């Protein structure tokens, strides 16, 4: 019976899709059968970040509407045999997602997979609601930046009221913070919110701190989840977070961002 994890944030551009891909790939690397689902109808991107965009045939909405079978719409990752992607539609709008339709698909996936990771769209509209409604766990992605933290707080409110667990009065969705684009040097100089500051404000457990990293853009360029880049500190931080998600006790460490070398800066190269 799969655990359903929603990766959400409220604010756009904080790293939800990157984190979904990294967590999904990390779980698959740990031997867990994992499926990642793109809930951002009309703005499909998870397929791009995972590098399977050229192989998408059918999508989540086709399955909900009965136009394709679930197994036909799942795209298997070529590098990780335990990982599959359920892409969303690029042409329809968010109204195409229905609560019953989403439930039916999740129920089918639940028997076959260990983890279902739902990539929420930004905002607090229908797509975001659908992505979180059936969740058991939530990964709240935030940057150490005021608007992002504020939006995360709003999302936490929705997680505790607008989910099936909340409506049924069951054990609440377990929400944990994933702080991304963290730069310890700037924190040191007092230019950036500290992890502890954010934790104090949001009052939820910490899943992980992902350092600002050049390797994230490189991974996105190549369509490869950043956890597959062994030299990446962001990748290592994601793997730690994945272990915590699976229930392991891993001590928190704040990894330094990879600084560009003198020569790279001289040449103006970024990735």
């Amino acid at each position: 019976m799969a655990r359903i994890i929603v990766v959400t944030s409220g604010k756009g551009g904080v790293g939800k899709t990157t984190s979904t891909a990294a967590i999904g790939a990390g779980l698959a690397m740990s031997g867990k059968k994992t499926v990642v689902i793109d809930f951002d109808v009309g703005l499909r991107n998870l397929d791009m970040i995972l590098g399977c965009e050229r192989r998408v045939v059918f999508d989540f909405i086709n399955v909900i509407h009965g136009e394709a079978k679930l197994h036909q719409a799942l795209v298997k990752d070529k590098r990780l045999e335990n990982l599959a992607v359920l892409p969303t539609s690029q042409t329809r709008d968010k109204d195409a997602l229905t609560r019953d339709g989403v439930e039916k698909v999740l129920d089918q996936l639940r028997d076959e997979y260990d983890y279902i990771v739902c990539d929420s769209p930004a905002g607090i509209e229908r797509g975001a609601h659908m992505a979180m409604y059936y969740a058991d766990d939530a990964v709240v992605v935030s940057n150490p930046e005021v608007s992002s933290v504020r939006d995360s707080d709003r999302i936490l409110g929705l997680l505790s009221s607008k989910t099936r667990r909340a409506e049924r009065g069951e054990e609440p969705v377990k929400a944990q913070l994933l702080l991304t684009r963290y730069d310890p040097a700037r924190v040191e100089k007092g230019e950036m919110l500290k992890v502890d500051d954010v934790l104090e404000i949001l009052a939820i457990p910490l899943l992980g701190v992902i350092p600002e990293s050049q390797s994230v853009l490189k991974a996105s360029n190549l369509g490869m989840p950043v956890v597959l880049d062994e030299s990446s500190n962001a990748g290592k931080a994601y793997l730690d977070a994945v272990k915590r998600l699976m229930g392991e006790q891993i001590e928190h460490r704040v990894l330094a961002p990879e600084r560009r070398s003198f020569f790279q800066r001289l040449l103006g190269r970024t990735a």
Partner: protein
Amino acid sequence: MNLLNLFRRSREGSAGAAKERLQILLAHERVDSEAPEYLPMLQKELIAVIEKYLDVDDEKVEVRLERGRELSTLEVNIELPGAENLQGRARGRPTAGTLLQA
């Protein structure tokens, strides 16, 4: 994508790979967005035609697509019942072939 390309790309930096992936994908998407989604219809009609002659299990139809720069390939695999599952059925129906490739 072969290994050689991978090495060549890494020397150029990953931005070259990003540009190429975007060019291919967007070229396809710009065309697709003007036409209705044809794949579900294509599949339905294809199965309807095949069902006139053969027993087809919906669960055993696989459609694969690979979008490329020069050309794209669409592969439809339909698994047909094998000899054992055909026993007891009316004669005259095809028994040969377990995989039909379109």
